[in-house]
Every structure is written in structure tokens, then in C-alpha cells.
């Protein structure tokens, strides 16, 4: 048990890296997708729709295997397992994030937009100073669920040779054959990481809720 833990914890660091990397990719891709969808131009709307439907309609594991085994045959170079995993898991999460973001932006009353236009705010000011601050409190709770899903999905990266908790636990299982201990510990580490992530998101939720009632 004691010699299993350090190896798994080393895996946990990699799991954290993959998850954080994927969250960064997802933030960028979902923001772009939502901007394209809300642009009102069908030339921009359609690619974003296809991106969202394709990534939400297929399984993350298939996307990952596709990027790892099939894509290098098409690309002129071979991405490292880490890059491929972060890119795929990030784009996958981004497709779900885009729907959350879009729903929250559309949930802000139309009058807010009209009032901002009447007050002659520029489109960027309208979005960043009027709409988004009101949409943020709606975004955080579903976003917390999404991030935890992304943490859990990062376990798939171990199947394409990223040395995360999954990968390390498979190696440990083969070398020690202490199945219950290895996978039991792996489950507990994931659970702990999810609890930490949930705690951080609850903190963020409080931070973003505060300015709405207090000072704008």
C-alpha cells in the first residue's frame, strides 16, 4: 500500500495537468464557438454548430483514439500523447461549455441589451460590462459539473500513454497484482481531486455572485 501511493500521486500530478490544460483549451474553444454562434452570420454559425454537434455526439474515447491513431496518418507530424489528450479533452469539454455559455447569455433579459444599446455602449462594452457579469452567476454551477466531468474524462488519457493516475494504476496492477488496493486508491484520489475542484468552484460562485447585489 505504501509503495503504491507515491506512484499514484505522481500520476495525480499529470492528471491535474491534463485537466487544467483541457480546461484552458475548453475555455478558448467554447468562447470562440459561442461568439460565432451569436454573431448572426450563418457562415460563422454553421461551423460552430458542426463543432458542437460532432464533439457532443460522439464519445470522448473515440475522439481520443481517433486523434491518437488516425489523425497522425493525415497530419504531417505526430502530436505527443499529452498534447493530443489536452487538445481532444479540451475541445470535447468546450463543446459542452459552449452550450452552457450560450444558454446563460441568452438567459439575460433582452431589455438589458436594449438599454445598453440605447445608452450608446459599444458592442464589446455591452458584452463584457453588461451581459457577461449577469450571465456569470448562471454559468458557474453547470461549469463546476463540466469541470468535474473533464477531470473524470482525463482518466481516458491514460489509455493513450499519458502517465496519469489511470496509466500508473494499470502498470501497478500488472506488477503488484494487488487489484483492490491499486484501483481502490485510484478511485479515492480521483474523489479527493473532484472534491477540491468542487470547493474551488463554490468559492468562485460566491465571488461572482457578490458584485451583482452589492455594487455594479
Amino acid at each position, binding site marked *: 500500500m505504501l509503495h503504491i501511493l507515491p506512484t499514484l500521486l505522481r500520476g495525480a500530478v499529470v492528471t491535474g495537468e491534463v485537466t487544467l490544460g483541457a480546461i484552458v483549451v475548453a475555455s478558448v474553444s467554447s468562447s470562440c464557438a459561442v461568439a460565432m454562434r451569436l454573431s448572426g452570420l450563418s457562415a460563422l454559425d454553421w461551423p460552430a454548430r458542426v463543432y458542437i*454537434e*460532432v464533439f*457532443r*455526439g*460522439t*464519445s*470522448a*474515447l*473515440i*475522439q481520443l*483514439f*481517433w486523434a491518437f*491513431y*488516425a489523425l497522425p*496518418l*493525415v497530419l504531417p507530424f505526430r502530436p505527443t500523447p499529452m498534447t493530443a489528450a489536452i487538445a481532444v479533452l479540451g475541445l470535447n469539454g468546450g463543446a459542452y461549455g459552449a452550450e452552457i455559455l450560450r444558454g446563460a447569455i441568452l438567459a439575460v433579459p433582452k431589455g438589458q441589451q436594449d438599454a445598453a444599446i440605447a445608452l450608446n455602449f459599444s458592442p464589446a462594452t455591452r458584452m463584457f460590462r453588461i451581459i457577461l457579469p449577469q450571465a456569470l452567476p448562471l454559468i458557474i454551477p453547470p461549469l463546476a459539473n463540466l469541470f*468535474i466531468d473533464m477531470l*473524470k*474524462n*482525463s*482518466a*481516458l488519457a*491514460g*489509455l493513450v500513454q499519458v502517465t496519469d*493516475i*489511470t496509466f500508473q*494504476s*494499470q502498470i501497478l*496492477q500488472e506488477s503488484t497484482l494487488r*487489484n*483492490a488496493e491499486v*484501483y*481502490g486508491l*485510484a*478511485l479515492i484520489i*480521483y*474523489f479527493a481531486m*473532484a*472534491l477540491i475542484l*468542487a470547493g474551488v468552484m463554490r468559492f468562485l460562485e460566491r465571488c461572482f455572485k457578490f458584485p451583482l447585489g452589492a455594487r455594479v
Partner: protein
Amino acid sequence: MTWNWTLVWHILPMILRGTVITVEATVLGMLLALLLGLIWAGLLFLPNRFIFWLVRLIIEFIRDTPLLIQLFFCYYVLPEIGVTIPALVTGITVLGINYSAYTAEVYRAGLQNIPVGQWNAAKALNFTPWQTFIRIIVPQALPPIVPAMGNNLIAMFKDTPLLSTITVMEMLNRAMIIGDKSFHYLEPLTLVGVLFLLMSLLASGLIGITQRKLLVRR
């Protein structure tokens, strides 16, 4: 590297046999999830604090840990304690238990939407608690939760490729075996991806129709 249509037609029947197993796992897994979720939700409504927190902890643990590791855990540990069942059965069981944590949440939301007055009225009419639950509460709680259950079904469908890691011969596993043998990964993996996309688009379309039908009926 170009796209090879001959190969696609050659491997299609093999992949489609995997589709059958994928659908089988989804349907049976969902049935288990629906049943077990209802049990969790029922336990959460009992007045016992200990049971409440225990069930909450179990649900939280299931929801916060990766399905993949849960599969590995059961696949490797069950034989150690003397339970030898086929990998597909292990897979369906783990899928069912995993999603029961989500269906429990949906049931709970559905049940909480029923006004307390319904319980009181049933009590006044001398129904037993069990009769009240089955004859009065469930028929009212069920229709609004159908779409949420449908979404769970699609999510589970998209999680079935994970069963390939415990040797279940579903679509992805077959595609990978074809790839390993022929070194053509592009066609089989793309084929599986497209099949998944088509089936989940079809399923979400059906759920949309059901949702509209239910809304009309109310």
C-alpha cells in the same frame, strides 16, 4: 494516406455486429440505472438521517470518480472475491450503477416537484404510503423527467466505448482490432465515430419529439 472505400465496405459488417453489443449494453445498463436510481431516491426520502447521508456519500462517490476506473476496479476485483461473470455483464452492471447516481438525482427532482398536498390528500383518503407512492406520486412525477432520463440514456450510450477496455467486443474494440491487424486506423475509427454521431443525433431527435408530445398532453 488516402481514404479507402473498399476497406470501409469490407469492415462495415464487423463494426455493425459491435453496434448490436453497444445497443445491448446501453439498454440493459439503462434499465438497471432506472431501477437502482429509484431505489436510491426512495432511500433519500426515508426519515433516517444515517441512511440519508450514507446514500448521499455513495452517490457523490460514484459521480465524482471516473467510470473507467470503476470498470477496472470491478473487472479485476470481482474475480478475486469469487465472482466470475462475463466482461459484458460486469460492464453493464458498472454502467448501470454509475448512471443510477444520475437517475437518482432526476427522480429526486421529479418527486420533489409534487406538492406535499398530494401526500396529505392520499393520507386523508386512507391510502398506505406505498400505495400513495406508486399510484399517486409516481404517475405525476414521471412525465416531466422523461427528457432528463433520455439525456442520461444518450450519455450512457456515449460511455459504452469504455467497455472496450475490459475486453467487451463493442464497436470501438472491433475498430481497434481491425486497426491493429491492418494498420489502417483512419477508416475503422472514423466509421465508428460517424455511427455514434448518427445514432446520438437520432436519439436526441426522438427525445425532442417525446418532450413535445408530453408538453402537449399537459
